[in-house]
């Protein structure tokens, strides 16, 4: 089993390296790297300094190595737009806001999605089931950026129940988390419903009933434990969706996180910051996937022997 874990770790590192390579190539190979990294208003001195620093006159592979070297020491360049602040510092500053929002959205998604999926499966064919399925269909079809705008207009402006944007109180979390989690909520609901229906029709559930166990135990202990496995399997895909969601939602709600930072830096063509944002998000994403892989190993005993 340690081989399995080490293998996954190696894959994670490989993925991170691949992403860094992609970013590196993008910045060096397309157009003028100096312009990208320094922006307009760079003096000849700045140019020379940069060329020396990044060894832009050396062969590509050497450049990549120094790129990596710099990255390991935390040097990702300086922001072109925000007055020469260190790019990594800028990004790490905004990271907590994004992580807290993502955590709230994920929590909301999982709890509500699993509950709805279970209820729909148990009451299969009833009005509740139909309702849940309609909600899930809508949730998977509505674009997050539009939903956010509509929610702001209706809930915050029209009804005045919640703040329209910004950060600070728990109330500020509600609309952004809701918007961010909607698509994944719908997907989880459908997944859990399908898995539960499968599980409930299986032989081991019959055996659980034969043992005379209370119905709640049969459903929540025996059926649900098997149904959660596909949810874990899809976590990776969910995270990817949430990243897009983060950029869009933070922009719409003016949330001071790295998603919004990414958007702002696109608008202001601040390449060093974008580059850093992308690398940091990728690292988080890969880390999250790794954790999910480990979780999967923990809950499905069949995986441990397979490797």
């Amino acid at each position: 089993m340690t081989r399995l874990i080490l293998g996954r770790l190696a894959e994670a590192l490989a993925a991170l390296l691949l992403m860094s390579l992609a970013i590196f190539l993008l910045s060096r190979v397309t157009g003028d790297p100096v312009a990208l990294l320094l922006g307009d208003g760079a003096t000849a001195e700045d140019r020379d300094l940069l060329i020396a620093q990044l060894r832009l006159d050396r062969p590509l592979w050497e450049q990549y190595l120094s790129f990596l070297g710099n990255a390991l020491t935390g040097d990702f360049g300086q922001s072109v737009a925000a007055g020469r602040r260190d790019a990594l510092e800028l990004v790490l500053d905004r990271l907590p806001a994004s992580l807290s929002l993502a955590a709230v959205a994920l929590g909301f998604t999982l709890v509500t999605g699993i509950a709805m999926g279970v209820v729909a499966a148990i009451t299969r064919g009833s009005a509740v089931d139909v309702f849940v399925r309609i909600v899930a269909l809508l949730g998977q079809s509505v674009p997050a950026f539009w939903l956010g705008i509509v929610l702001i207009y209706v809930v915050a402006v029209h009804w005045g129940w919640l703040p329209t944007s910004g950060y600070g109180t728990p109330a500020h979390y509600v609309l952004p988390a809701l918007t961010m989690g909607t698509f994944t909520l719908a997907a989880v609901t459908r997944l859990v419903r399908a898995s539960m229906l499968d599980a409930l029709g299986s032989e081991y559930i019959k055996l659980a009933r034969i043992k005379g166990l209370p119905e709640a135990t049969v459903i929540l202990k025996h059926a649900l434990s098997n149904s959660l496995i596909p949810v874990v399997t899809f976590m990776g895909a969910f995270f990817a969706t949430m990243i897009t969601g983060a950029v869009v939602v933070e922009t719409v709600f003016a949330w001071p996180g790295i998603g919004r930072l990414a958007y702002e830096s696109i608008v202001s063509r601040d390449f060093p910051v974008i580059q850093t944002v992308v690398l940091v998000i990728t690292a988080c994403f890969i880390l999250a996937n790794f954790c999910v892989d480990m979780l999967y190993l923990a809950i499905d005993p069949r995986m441990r022997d397979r490797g």
Partner: protein
Amino acid sequence: MQKITFHAALVLLALFVLTAVFGPYLVEHDPLKGSLRARLEPPLWAGGSAEHLLGTDRLGRDMLARIVSGARISLTVCVVVIAIAGSIGTAIGTLSGYVGGWLDRILMRLVDLALSLPVILLALLIGAVSGPSFGNIVLVISLVLWSQYARMARGETLRVKNEDYVDLARTSGLGHVRIIARHILPNIAPALIVVATLQVGVVIVLEASLSFLGVGVPPPNPSWGSMVADGRSYVVTAWWVSLFPGIAILLVVMAVNIVGDALTDRINPALRGRTA
């Protein structure tokens, strides 16, 4: 009840395609030309005129015309992306499944790697470097989607490869290319069609999201996503500019999902609810 929803969804999809193909010839206004005098006019039922049924945007461009053109953009992107991602993905997956061995292992590693990266970020990066463009959006969305085809094609090829009729073809001396073309591809096609159908919704939303952020379809093309972005700053007063394109996206994607689900049920019930 389910049949009604399915047929309604099919009708909606047909409407979408027809609008995308023929719509721009039928609307009277030019989606790209606006008149400053007609800025931010509300739709007909909210105090506007019959001249602009769905109102106008901040440059006086007719909303209806723009939405119709937006349909064409969405459809075009869908078709192109799915064609590219589908061909490449299917080719890689089929080859991988058919040949097996080390080729299979390498290609599947590649797929795993591709899946473990958030490719959206690359879109943002490319957008920042070279600005919004059609090429960017097609490239990036294809990068996101191709691996699903590869996985499905490989799985299906492995299943079909062991069927008796393939053995028969092999013993009758058919070359590999003929076998793949005549026996394998037609039999893996249904599952791939299901994948494609389910992806249409994803493509539309992705394209809209990227355009919303400014790294997708370049202005002044009326992508539904950029239309929503346009109307964002005055959503309180001129709500129609952001609302209608969003509703268009919602309706089309809903219809796609309904049809896709029905197809999944028909072709492979084991996948039901599992395509996230």
